[in-house]
């Protein structure tokens, strides 16, 4: 029944407009959040027993006929599903209060659920073209969500995002066509087997280049990042949280990792390219983040930087590196989601995102200040929070794989990260309370509840990191480290 991850949000999204006519706020809030909670429970509780015996391959039967809905759930997919459900639920709870003044809540939740369905659909795909289809589903929903406020900035950001995204998609399909041309198949198992047999390195290099361009833009790796610093700040805060926390990871990193490691096989050349792309994003984006005055823009550049970290970790190719990369992906989803949500609380309370205009908000918004601190320290990699352990794993993997220079750069970039996050913390929350904000109140209930939920998870995973790694991260890392065998072995038709 893993098809529920895709079908349930779609069905609820389908009936939301009708529900919205009846009840403008309560029922849509309830339905959307209940759906996401159900998905979270499914992923967290039923997920691991399902894959205990190896990957689950679904072949459904509908109305008596065998319908070929081919899905696959293994350790890697399950980790991503869990991340999507967690951050998706938190941002959705946040939306209950935050989206009040945007209006059209039922419409918003419908788009939101379609985006979640698209991401889940991508995660569960066994087929190159299905990856593309669901990538587009999530993308089309996200364009309208970025532009949801219908202000000039949002429309401009959404338009640029759309233009660049469509070019990336075109390259993806071109890559898929080349692979189809070579192997005559589209599903992962057959393609992996076919490519191994053909061993056509130059043509595979062309296809890899197309995929790097496409997925690299979706993941906002430098030099394909230009759309992100405009799109993520302009979107409503919960959407920024989902875009930075989930969409760039699912459409970008997950798809790239799945195809490059499980279908193509990670060659040393590919590994080098990924590591360099990762480290360049890591460093350049960190510097770009330093100069920002807009809180959400700084967070956006930080996302580019941290995704660079993840790609660097996965690019190393060793089990430790992959584990570190995936752990950091998960941690960053939680922490960056948290930070965008708190920035939304601040924006709603003060009406501004300009760091220089804020000051001393901790006195009036203590919970938001505390959760923001947790998120910042987590991404900066301060023990004992979760981000520290994932960064440590990546750095250890770099040293072990004889890349000491990369390790030093990664450590220095971490220091830089800590620096600019402390700038946010200091300018916005600590210091003298700016007279303008003397009357602001703490954020409404659901907004604080969502941020507290994510903050508690950051702390909890940090303390229980060993348990988290063995339960969730290791199975995912094993799948990727297996390379082609993960797909040709047990997914074979």
């Amino acid at each position: 029944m893993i098809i529920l991850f895709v079908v349930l949000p779609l069905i609820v999204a389908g009936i939301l407009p009708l529900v919205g006519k009846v009840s403008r706020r309560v029922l849509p809030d309830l339905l959307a959040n209940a759906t996401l909670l159900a998905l979270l429970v499914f992923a967290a509780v039923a997920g691991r027993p399902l894959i205990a015996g190896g990957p689950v391959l679904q072949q459904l039967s509908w109305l008596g006929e065998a319908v070929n809905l081919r899905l696959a759930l293994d350790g890697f997919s399950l980790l991503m599903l869990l991340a999507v459900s967690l951050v998706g639920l938190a941002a959705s709870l946040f939306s209950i209060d935050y989206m009040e003044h945007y209006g059209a809540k039922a419409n918003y939740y419908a788009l939101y659920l379609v985006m979640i369905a698209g991401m889940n659909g991508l995660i569960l795909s066994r087929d190159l073209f299905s990856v593309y289809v669901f990538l587009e589903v999530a993308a089309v929903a996200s364009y309208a969500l970025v532009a949801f406020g219908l202000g000039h900035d949002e429309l401009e950001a959404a338009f640029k995002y759309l233009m660049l995204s469509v070019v990336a998609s075109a390259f993806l399909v071109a890559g898929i066509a080349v692979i189809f041309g070579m192997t005559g198949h589209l599903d992962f198992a057959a393609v992996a087997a076919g490519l191994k047999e053909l061993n056509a390195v130059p043509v595979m290099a062309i296809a890899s280049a197309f995929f790097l361009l496409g997925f690299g833009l979706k993941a906002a790796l430098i030099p394909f990042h230009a759309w992100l610093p405009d799109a993520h700040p302009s979107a409503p805060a919960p959407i920024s949280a989902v875009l930075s926390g989930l969409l760039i990871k699912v459409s970008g990193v997950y798809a790239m990792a799945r195809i490059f490691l499980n279908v193509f096989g990670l060659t040393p050349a590919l590994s080098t390219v990924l590591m360099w792309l990762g480290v360049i994003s890591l460093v350049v984006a960190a510097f770009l983040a330093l100069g920002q005055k807009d809180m959400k823009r700084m967070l956006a550049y930080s996302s580019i930087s941290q995704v660079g970290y993840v790609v660097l970790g996965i690019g190393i190719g060793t089990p430790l590196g992959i584990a570190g990369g995936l752990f950091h992906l998960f941690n960053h989803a939680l922490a960056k989601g948290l930070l965008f949500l708190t920035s939304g609380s601040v924006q709603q309370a003060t009406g501004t995102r300009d760091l220089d205009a804020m000051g001393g908000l901790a006195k009036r918004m203590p919970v938001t200040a505390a959760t923001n601190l947790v998120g910042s320290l987590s991404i900066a990699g301060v023990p004992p929070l979760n981000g520290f352990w994932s960064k440590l794993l990546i750095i250890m993997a770099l040293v072990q794989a004889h890349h000491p220079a990369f390790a030093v750069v990664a450590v220095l970039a971490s220091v830089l990260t800590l620096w600019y996050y402390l700038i946010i913390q200091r300018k916005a929350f600590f210091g003298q309370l700016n007279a303008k904000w003397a009357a602001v109140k703490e954020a409404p209930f659901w907004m604080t509840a969502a941020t507290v939920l994510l903050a508690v998870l950051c702390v909890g995973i940090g303390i229980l990191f060993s348990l988290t790694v063995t339960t969730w991260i290791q199975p995912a890392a094993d799948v990727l480290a297996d390379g082609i065998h993960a797909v040709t072995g047990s997914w074979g038709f």
Partner: protein
Amino acid sequence: MTNTWYLYVFFAAALIGAGLLGLLAKRNLIKLFIAIEVIGKGISLLLLGTGFAKASILTAQALVITYIVIEVSLVATALALIINITRHTKSLDVRNLAKLKG
């Protein structure tokens, strides 16, 4: 790969190239989107040409149909964005969309 495949790839690349050049060169929002449509044609031609060369024309048709459906949703969303943008800037010039620094 049969030689006809290279013929179709040649023309598909020509279409995609024309579209990309159009994206770089044009300033009218609607023209930019027409350039994207041209890229879409190139991609459908590439997919079908590949299917034809591999004697998998049925699978390729299914792919192209799905691709066209996705394209329709995309066009609807993009044109809705463009109409909203003109309500704000009263112009179809992409240079008016330079407020955000990127």
